[in-house]
């Protein structure tokens, strides 16, 4: 059944020829909506254009400064809506649309529409004109969501719209620079910009502005130069209104601009309060954009994370190609949401952005977003060009060899010639129990969260209320404490008769097997591992009691003795592991700046020395003396790392401490020649912390191979012991 003619009478669709129409009809859908039924909702990907075939549809959004949604526009038959995606690929809807009466609505996928338009419209000029028309409609919707639109009639709005210029910015692009002449007032229609000033070559972020915010109006009013720079944090769409048009508008509506200003100022103040109140927010403020666009950000509580890497391993093992989509490297953020004072690590793993940069860069459209916002790569369409991997600002996509079906050669598997394919987190699609990394964490330190909802500082900076809290790891000590009396009671029983030896031995063997089965649970089943680890702890304690009850303290010179030795070796290494798992993560996170893998630490000493070399070149003699007299001995002191551990200071605290010491020695002399000292102090402290990091990382890891190897030996000896003991009569 072909679509009603009224659909094609919509302004945007009029130039399409018959072929384009049939293509669109094949790809699109014609749906009926009951009164009040929702056509699309805010937050969904904007990947389709809608035309009302019958009935009426209302587009509604919450105006700034208001609480309830208002109907911004009523769409009659033969009119389009949902245009915001048509000129900005990869965008997200910010408005809701629902039927005001029973309606029939045609949904046209934007990709198909654009292609049809480009082919059918003939000239590029025409396509552009069409896009302009669609953008104008969308812009009108955006302007209507601004607070002042309430008091402005349509004609006035059209006049403003006529004057509006559009600026599309990519991540890192500059909207205006500090000191430039103010020529425009800007409204952010989509995306996020950071307002920054430059201070001795160091960039300071002052504020972030998001959709609906106005910027640059003060300077335009006074005619002065820009006091700050504005840089796009991610792809942004900004409405620029020339100075004259804006001033005329402001004259005609004297009260309105004050209102806008007030909203903006309140927001800025809230951000300042959030940023200034605690040290913690500074980290988040550094890359607020990341927090804003992330829908499912992987965070690891560094106070609980034991650096076992099981998350990465389980990721690798749950994908056919054996490549981990999660690498435990990355920045840390400090937040009150985490347990204790420990920061959260944001490892490199796809965060499923609202407007994915990777998706825009993909030449074949292999990257898509499903309705829940999950970003996925269609491997069959991926040509391995690497654009997405380069486009991701946080290195969350990697290139990896294409997974091969058994026996298939590369050529058979791949339509083109590429060996490589882009891989990234797919949230373990199709796996029961959610992402493998989260469920396989033995300490429950890892979680996938929407930062706007789960991290209060992000919510405060963005003006969103935090709803959920970060999941906390379940404590292990109650179970262990419960197991101790059981073990103690067992030790009171001593086997004497053969029968009682058989019984106690059987119990001990069963417990040993249960303990060893943890390895299978961990490797193969991968359930919520935290619970199993706690059970493993408790079982371990009970088993120690059972072994004492069975064998006492004797170590006979036979298999039984070897088993006894191997078991206690396993137990001691396990106890050591439990203790370091509890005690070290928080200590380690204090002396780490970023998430680093053990193999990253090996070359770091040389890198630090190199950076020091770079920092020292061309600096003053005073600084060089300070380095050689104070900082180098400090950095290389043999017991330095131990002292750092004992002091319990963080790297930042240690830096301040060292800085104060240097100032004490200098007593204010040569201050003007000390430029670059901070960087050197930072390097010296990092250099001192490096051996400590290595030792702590090693302590967290080294016991495990021993524990595992001894377990294997225990199992072998257990079999031998049972066989020999039951055979001998």
């Amino acid at each position, binding site marked *: 059944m072909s679509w009603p003619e009224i659909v094609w009478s919509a302004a945007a669709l009029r130039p399409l020829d018959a072929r384009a129409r049939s293509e669109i009809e094949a790809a699109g859908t014609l749906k009926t909506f009951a009164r009040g039924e929702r056509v699309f909702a805010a937050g969904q990907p904007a990947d389709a254009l809608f035309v009302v075939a019958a009935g009426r549809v209302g587009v509604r959004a919450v105006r700034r400064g208001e609480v309830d949604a208002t109907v911004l526009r009523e769409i009659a038959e033969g009119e389009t809506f949902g245009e915001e995606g048509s000129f900005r690929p990869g965008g997200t809807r910010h408005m809701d649309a629902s039927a005001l009466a029973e309606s029939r609505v045609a949904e046209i996928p934007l990709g198909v529409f654009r292609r049809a338009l480009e082919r059918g419209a003939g000239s590029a000029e025409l396509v552009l004109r069409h896009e302009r028309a669609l953008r104008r409609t969308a812009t009108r919707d955006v302007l209507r969501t601004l607070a002042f639109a309430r008091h402005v009639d349509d004609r006035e709005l059209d006049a403003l719209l006529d004057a509006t210029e559009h600026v599309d910015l*990519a991540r*890192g*692009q*500059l*909207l205006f620079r500090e000191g430039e002449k103010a020529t425009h007032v800007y409204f952010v229609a989509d995306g996020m910009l*950071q307002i*920054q000033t430059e201070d001795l070559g160091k*960039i300071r*972020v002052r504020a972030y502005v998001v959709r609906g915010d106005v910027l640059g109006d003060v300077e335009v009013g006074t005619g002065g130069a820009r006091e700050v720079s504005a*840089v796009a944090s991610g792809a942004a769409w900004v409405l*620029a209104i020339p100075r004259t048009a804006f001033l005329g508008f402001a004259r005609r509506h004297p009260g309105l601009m004050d209102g806008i200003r007030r909203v903006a100022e309140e927001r800025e103040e809230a951000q300042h309060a959030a940023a200034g109140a605690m040290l913690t927010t500074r980290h988040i403020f550094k890359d607020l954009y990341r927090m804003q666009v992330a829908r499912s950000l992987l965070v690891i509580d560094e106070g609980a994370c034991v650096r076992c*890497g*099981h*998350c990465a391993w389980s990721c*690798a093992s749950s994908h056919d190609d054996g490549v*981990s989509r999660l*690498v435990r490297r990355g920045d840390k953020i400090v937040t009150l949401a985490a347990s204790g004072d420990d920061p959260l690590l944001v490892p490199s793993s796809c965060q499923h952005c609202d407007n994915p940069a990777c998706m825009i860069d993909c*030449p074949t459209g292999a990257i898509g977003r499903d309705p829940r916002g999950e970003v996925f790569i269609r491997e069959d369409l991926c*040509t391995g*060009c*690497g*654009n997405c991997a*380069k486009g*991701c*600002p*946080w*290195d969350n996509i*990697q*290139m*990896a060899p294409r997974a091969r079906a058994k026996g298939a050669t590369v050529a058979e598997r791949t339509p*083109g010639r590429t060996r490589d394919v882009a891989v990234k987190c797919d949230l373990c699609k199709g796996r029961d129990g959610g992402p493998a990394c989260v469920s396989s964490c033995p300490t429950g330190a890892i979680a996938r969260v929407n930062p706007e909802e789960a991290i209060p500082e992000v919510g405060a900076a963005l003006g969103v209320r935090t709803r959920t809290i970060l999941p906390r790891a379940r404590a292990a000590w109650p179970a262990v404490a419960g197991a101790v009396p059981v073990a103690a009671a067992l030790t009171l029983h001593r086997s004497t*008769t*053969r*029968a009682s030896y058989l019984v106690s031995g059987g119990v001990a063997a069963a417990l040993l097997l249960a303990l060893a089965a943890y390895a299978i649970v961990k490797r193969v089943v991968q359930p919520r591992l935290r619970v199993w680890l706690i059970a493993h702890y408790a079982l371990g304690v009970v088993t120690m009691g059972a072994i004492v009850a069975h064998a006492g303290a*004797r170590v*006979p*010179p*036979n*298999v039984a*003795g*070897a088993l006894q*030795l191997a078991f206690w*070796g396993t137990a001691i290494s396990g106890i050591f592991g439990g203790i370091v798992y509890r005690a070290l993560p928080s200590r380690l996170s204090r002396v780490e700046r970023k998430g680093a*893998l053990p*193999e990253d630490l090996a070359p770091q000493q040389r890198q630090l020395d*190199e*950076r020091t070399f*770079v920092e020292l070149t061309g600096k003053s003699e005073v600084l060089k003396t300070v380095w050689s007299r104070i900082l180098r001995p400090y950095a290389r002191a043999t017991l330095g790392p131990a002292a750092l551990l004992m002091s319990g200071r963080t790297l930042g605290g240690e830096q301040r401490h060292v800085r104060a010491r240097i100032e004490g020695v200098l007593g204010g002399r040569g201050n003007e020649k000390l430029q670059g000292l901070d960087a050197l102090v930072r390097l010296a402290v990092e250099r001192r912390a490096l051996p400590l990091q290595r030792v702590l990382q090693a302590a967290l*890891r080294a016991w*495990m*191979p021993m524990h*595992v*190897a001894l377990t*294997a*030996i225990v199992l*072998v000896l257990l079999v031998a*012991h049972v066989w020999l*003991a039951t055979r*001998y*009569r």
Partner: protein
Amino acid sequence: MKPDAPGTPKELATLDAAAARRARTAPRAVATSDVTRVRDMAIAAGAGAIAAIGALVLVPSGAPEASPGPLARPHAQAKLPCTACHSDKEGAPAPRAACGGCHGGPAHASLRAGHRALAAKGELGCITCHPAHGDARGVTFASDGSYVLWSSGVESRGNAAHATPGGATVPLVPVAVCAKCHDAQDPRDPLASCTAPGAAISTCFDEHQRADQTTPAGNRCAAQHGPARFVAWESAREIAQAAPAPVRASGAGPLGIVGAGLGASSLALVAATALRRRRRRAAPDAEAKLPAGARLRLPQIDPTTCIGCYACVDACPFDVIEIERYVAKVVRPSDCCGVVLCEQVCPNGSLVIAEGEPIATRLNLDDRLESRDAPGVFVAGDLSGLPLIKNAIVQGRRVVEHVAASLPAKERVKSPSATEVDLVIVGAGPAGISASLRARELGLSYVTLEQGTVASSVKSFPRSKLVFDQPLDLPVEGELWLKESTKEELLAQWTRIVRARKLAVREGRRVDAVTREGKTLIVSSIDATGGRETIRAARLVLAIGKRGTPKTLACPIAAAAEGKVAYSLADARSFAGQRVLVVGLGDTAMEAAIALARQPGTAVTIAYRGAAFQRGKARNVAEVKRLLARGAVRILFESHVSRIGADAVTLEGPRGREDLRIDAVFVLIGGVPSWDLVQQAGVKMTIQALDITSEISKSAPPTI
């Protein structure tokens, strides 16, 4: 409306500083230790288990399970089951009852009053002194005069000094057993009379009823305790005193088994790690691809299938390809190095490298990079055709290896001096340093002459430029290369190596002539003051690059500004968004200015002494004029640079002095091309007909 400086990566502000890196290479997935160590642990566990099984099988334990130690030899020989002594129902067996069954109770009642009293109370039994497991000891005599001295599971044999009745067994009581009650060290203790000082065995054999007394013992006992008992006792005493008690071979105990398992697993762990490291190092052998072909190779792009994905653009280290109208296009064919990176990354095969014109500018070198025309002269680095740092490092190393191989020990200089060495290396760039380092390692006497300072071409790279790991997976030998480092890090590494290894690099000496005297090459060089020196050498390595000797500005340059001044343009893209001054208006200068002006946001100023365009290819002049008209470049005619300060460059011209705030200065006012020296040394081009050197000299303006 256009935003300011579109796509300027410099403005990435507080956002990630790694953006520049991302602009070039897509990150590759690597197996981190998180993933690999799980596999390693499985290997370790497997090895431990296998070793434990091996230990169990190879060295079986002497003691049965569920027993405190091996059974005493006579009991083991009689194949007594556990139940012979131990009741299955009860705990510890009643010793007297258990032993009495075979040995006869009363016959073995102790003669000593104290022991007897204790036995009566049940506090002392047979096994108090004669443990059945573990500590049991004794001597058993055979009929042929030999004996067996046994203890916990082990035995030693010998021949008795006296003829001793066969079949007799004399149990020995270790002093350790007596020590439960007695103190052997105390002279008042009755035990003292039973033990020799330091002996481990009690030598009293009068504990039980005498054998020569009438006994009601059964047949079994009579066989053992015949009248010859005294003889047996005497022999046993002698044997116990003379021969040390046999010791159980070490390693078979519980510690041995567990230790073997643990040792094997740690060995397996180390082996797995080493293996992986080796595998990672063994990159695909790209060496074969290295020597550039004899023909010019250029990318051919099929515009109908090209999807405009930028993969080739990003892969090319020399900006040969650009995207125009959504399709890749070769825009700078002359810069193409013929490495097939772009072909490798092209996702759908739209780009292939095709063989084209024969390359005229190649030096006539053999596979070992030795000149076919001038034996003994080797070429390494940029001159050999592939202008990549990594290539230079590898070639520098290889060349010296060939030199060492071609120079037998008897031809080497016996006593190297400042004027006579095996090898002269000209140039201390990446190839030169690499060659020097290898020469030092191989024990060749060498000297490296450098006209400027170490790695000055790399020094002229823009500040913090990332040096990329682009060409294939070229295996790198030696320690000069740093992965994904910046120019400063690379330089720091090189300077440190030059200093730490005490490489014989002589800076500030320009080689200007090479002559030949028989097999010996005579290298003549001058320093800044004009001091001339000649060095005699058997071999010469030319690692001078293509830069030649640039002319420098006569004006003072502030120390802080030295990093800003460059004599060649390495990568125009790094200067996007910067303020750049180009000094000179020859072809080289114009080409640099054009490349720079093409970058987004770059403000290019050209300073030139002449009053108008005077020379240069028509194409370049037209392009610069076009840029001038568009306002993309600014030309200051009749001006010269009078000072380069830390933050400003002072120009003097007809309009007086002018201070410019400049981020980088390119001094491109010509110089002596490196080909001159190459020709001097006798190295020729592959195609003689084409006089390429004159072509190149022409392109560089002699003066301004």
